[in-house]
């Protein structure tokens, strides 16, 4: 099976900023993304846990976004600009996909 090399961007971001992130992704014409919930974590801001929280203020989500390597720079830049004011983390790794034309 023919596989195509893509970049897998993983963004851990505080939940209230999610809408801004997805709007940024849509503005950048990113073909798709998937949001996973996070239930706990720790960072420079100290540990947190979603348990029993009513406000989303301290919750995190993890957004996965597979993009074409050619577009990595152009996408990571604006995301970084948005995330840097919020609590968050961006990491990028390699991934192979099948229907390469989609990304």
């Amino acid at each position, binding site marked *: 099976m023919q596989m195509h090399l893509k970049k897998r961007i993983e963004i851990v971001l505080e939940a209230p900023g999610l809408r801004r992130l997805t709007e940024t992704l849509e503005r950048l014409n990113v073909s798709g993304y998937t949001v996973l919930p996070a239930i706990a974590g720790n960072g420079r801001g100290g540990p947190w846990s979603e*348990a029993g929280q009513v406000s989303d203020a*301290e919750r995190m989500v993890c957004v996965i976004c597979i993009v074409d390597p050619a577009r990595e720079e152009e996408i990571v830049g604006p995301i970084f600009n948005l995330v840097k004011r919020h609590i968050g983390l961006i990491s990028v790794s390699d991934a192979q996909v099948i229907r390469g034309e989609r990304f």
Partner: protein
Amino acid sequence: MSAIDLALGNLLSPVVLFFALGLFAAIARSDLTIPEAVAKGLAIYLMMAIGLKGGVEVAKQGLTAKLVLTIGAGAVLSFALPFLAYAILRTVSRLSPVNAAAVAAHYGSISAVTLAVGIEVLGRANLPFEGYLIAVAAVMETPAILAALLIVSRSTPREDGLSGKELFHEIALNGSVVVLVGSFIVGWIAGPAGMKPIAPLFTDLFRGILCLFLLDMGLVAGRGFARARKALSPPVILFGIAMPLISAAIAAPIAALLGLSPGGAMLFITLAASSSYIAVPAAMRLALPEADAAIYLTLSLGVTFPFNLAIGLPLYLTIAQHLAG
């Protein structure tokens, strides 16, 4: 009831005891947790129940000038208190301008849960209240946020590309505001007759569900406290106790001027003295993401809320009864 009976009755009510249980469990590092989905569901229930109750009362009593005046007074208070809170914080503590403004927003806004417990206290004391105080509560949620933004914009220029309009939209349509106002309107339209078939859920269960919710709030407050101890300096903690008293002292004469009933005056003072814990924190993450959430959340939920629960509410009731007596 004497003031001391009142305070004791309050401290030994299941609602407060369950908050204490949650606090204990969190501080003792028990693994007890209430799932996030359940906590959010309970919060929506509480907003609906409060909103419906207020709307039905207004349906009974009709629109009056006092209603409009009280709502106006609430909005002004919510906008003005953050300036006072900011000035105090900058004088007594070392909080940065952004952190001080974020904290200040919480104290201008209101806590729907403190309101719910206040209603429960009135229920136990068999005191009625003006239903439109629920509308006052809804109106008081957001002006404080705008005040905080104004305070910050004078010291720090905004740099991100977000328009104020977009931000205002995110804040004004905050879920908790929408449910509270919406349920108020539903209650108003449906009236006492429409309320009757849904009363077993929204009236009869109200106090029991408040117990469940306060168990959760105790857990969250306790965990936050364990974690944010370092972030909170003694002056900041003191502020968390003094500010509700200052707000109450400002709100009490206004309530008297407005001619509210003892129950209504008590709730009006409670609104002023309570600090937000659902709507404002989420708004601050969007509007002032540089502010440290650990500070404002812990102060509001871990210091001011328990203070109001244990000492504030019976005190405000005593004041209100003297005002109106």
